């Protein structure tokens, strides 16, 4: 596996205004301050229109802030002469419904597109592509297939492989499970967890599923109308149930279940956010440790 640098990002007082100076002016991001450390798995949640997609499109330089700075490894990307294209190879952005970005006639060719644009030879690109396909669980039999003959989940994995083939240190994904069936969702999230743990890729995930971010993210950032409302671990963020609901969000289903149990007098920890934790807590109450029958 390639030798990864540690990619540290610090966003300082970032503001982004759509249509500045026109009648449609809208402040989409308002004084954003946050740091992303190498190896994190971050979930970004927020009501539709809160600025999530706008924010993540700054991470690879696709959007340029109206004011403020973004330091990548200590260098402000808005300084003159900053190698923006290199940033795009380090921070791979996967848009929503990424299968719409597939255009080649075979899977292998599509996955090779990125590496070729990095200046690799055909053979080098193929090697990277094959390695990326293996990472997403697409074996050699997929190489010559037309991407358009694949299922939605498979197409999505081809699109992700196309980004991985460029060797990013960070993967930023906008609603990667949108439109997939339950098993498809599990497969993609499981893939991200593997990439995070085994390849040590930093993962930033925008999602509308509270359950998904609770299960997979180690840190959750909540956006509300362009501002950061919370930035903490899931157990802490999801204690603010009423506040989250008031900004169009919710807590994970499990949290509601545990709160209801607590109100009924069960001595359980209502800060748990996953099914496994919830089951363990309840079993303890009934004097059965997890694993016994």
């Amino acid at each position, binding site marked *: 596996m390639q030798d990864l640098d540690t990619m540290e990002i610090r966003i300082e007082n970032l503001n982004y205004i759509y249509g500045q100076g026109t009648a449609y002016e809208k402040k989409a991001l308002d004084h954003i301050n946050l740091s992303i450390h190498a190896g994190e798995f971050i979930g970004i949640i927020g009501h539709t229109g809160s600025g999530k997609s706008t924010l993540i499109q700054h991470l690879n330089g696709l959007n340029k802030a109206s004011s403020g700075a973004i330091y990548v490894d200590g260098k402000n990307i808005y300084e003159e002469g900053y190698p923006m294209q290199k940033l795009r190879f380090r921070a791979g952005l996967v848009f929503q419904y990424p299968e719409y970005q597939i255009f080649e006639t075979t899977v292998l060719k599509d996955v090779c597109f990125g590496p070729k644009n990095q200046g690799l030879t055909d053979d080098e690109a193929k090697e990277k592509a094959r390695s990326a396909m293996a990472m997403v669980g697409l074996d050699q039999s997929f190489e010559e297939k037309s991407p358009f003959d694949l299922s*939605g989940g498979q197409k999505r994995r081809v699109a992700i492989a196309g980004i991985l083939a460029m060797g990013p240190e960070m993967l930023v994904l906008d609603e990667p499970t*949108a439109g997939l069936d339950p098993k498809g969702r599990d497969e993609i999230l499981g893939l991200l967890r593997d990439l995070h743990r085994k390849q040590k890729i930093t993962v930033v995930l925008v999602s509308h599923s509270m359950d998904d971010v609770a299960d997979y993210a180690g840190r959750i950032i909540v956006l509300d109308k362009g501002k950061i409302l919370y930035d903490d671990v899931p157990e802490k963020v999801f204690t603010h149930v009423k506040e989250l609901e008031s900004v169009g969000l919710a807590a994970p289903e499990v949290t509601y279940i545990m709160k209801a149990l607590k109100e009924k007098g069960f001595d359980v920890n209502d800060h748990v956010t996953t099914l496994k934790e919830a089951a363990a807590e309840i079993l303890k109450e009934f004097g059965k440790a997890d694993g016994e029958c």
Partner: protein
Amino acid sequence: MSKKEKSIIEGHDLTYEYLHYDDEGKVDSSYQALKGVDLEVKEGQFIAILGHNGSGKSTLARQLNALLVPTGGTLFIDGNDTRDESKIWEVRQTAGMVFQNPDNQIISSVVEEDVGFGPENMGIPTKEIWERVRKALNAVGMLEYRKSSPNRLSGGQKQRVAIAGVIAMKPKCIVLDEPTAMLDPGGRAEVIDTVRQLNREEGVTVILITHYMEEVIPSDRVIVMDEGKVVMTGTPREIFSRVDDLKAIRLDVPKVTELAYLLKMKGLSLPDGILSIEEFTEELDRLREG
């Protein structure tokens, strides 16, 4: 419970085959997406359709307003055969469709004009159009955006405008194909609440396709599809009791149902098919006392 006994949707041995054409326009392959589906929906019912991606559920949904017509078998919408071209507008008036991606459904540059587009095409008097537009936008929580340009709205806001556009036509039946897939939890709740209200208060028949299991719980009946066929039908409780069967066809159950199932596997004697947090806490309470 349905108010009337009339069938608004009747499908017998419904089959649909997609044809793939080569560059010369000759059929070079075909794919059977629906393999003999029988379907009956009474007016006023709330039906949920579940199925993994590729199971045929979207193909089935598109039959209901004659976007596609059966290649085998029959489908009657409010007594009209969907293959009868002379009845196509009646069919489309009866069954309004809401898709997943609002960008494919919004055509005007002002929200209230987009919502009014349908009623206008129906020849409804102007005053009534505006009344319907107001009510529809209010029902989906977008009234304050009535003068906005749709391309300035977020995905969820756009979707609510698309739904308003269908509601404004007052169809007897609304078919929604994963309408909340692109929405935040607040938006999802609003859309589903709106749909439930239309069903309960106006008697609109609702066909909801979704991957969010919690949305299925208030339905009268659930139809589960796999590989182009209906493999299970029943009440939500009956269907969600079959946790392993559902997981085997790539589906899921509501979180509370799964939690109860996990605990049952570990020895707690809980009943199958628990659907609500209330039921769950009551059952655990009973175990604690008993």
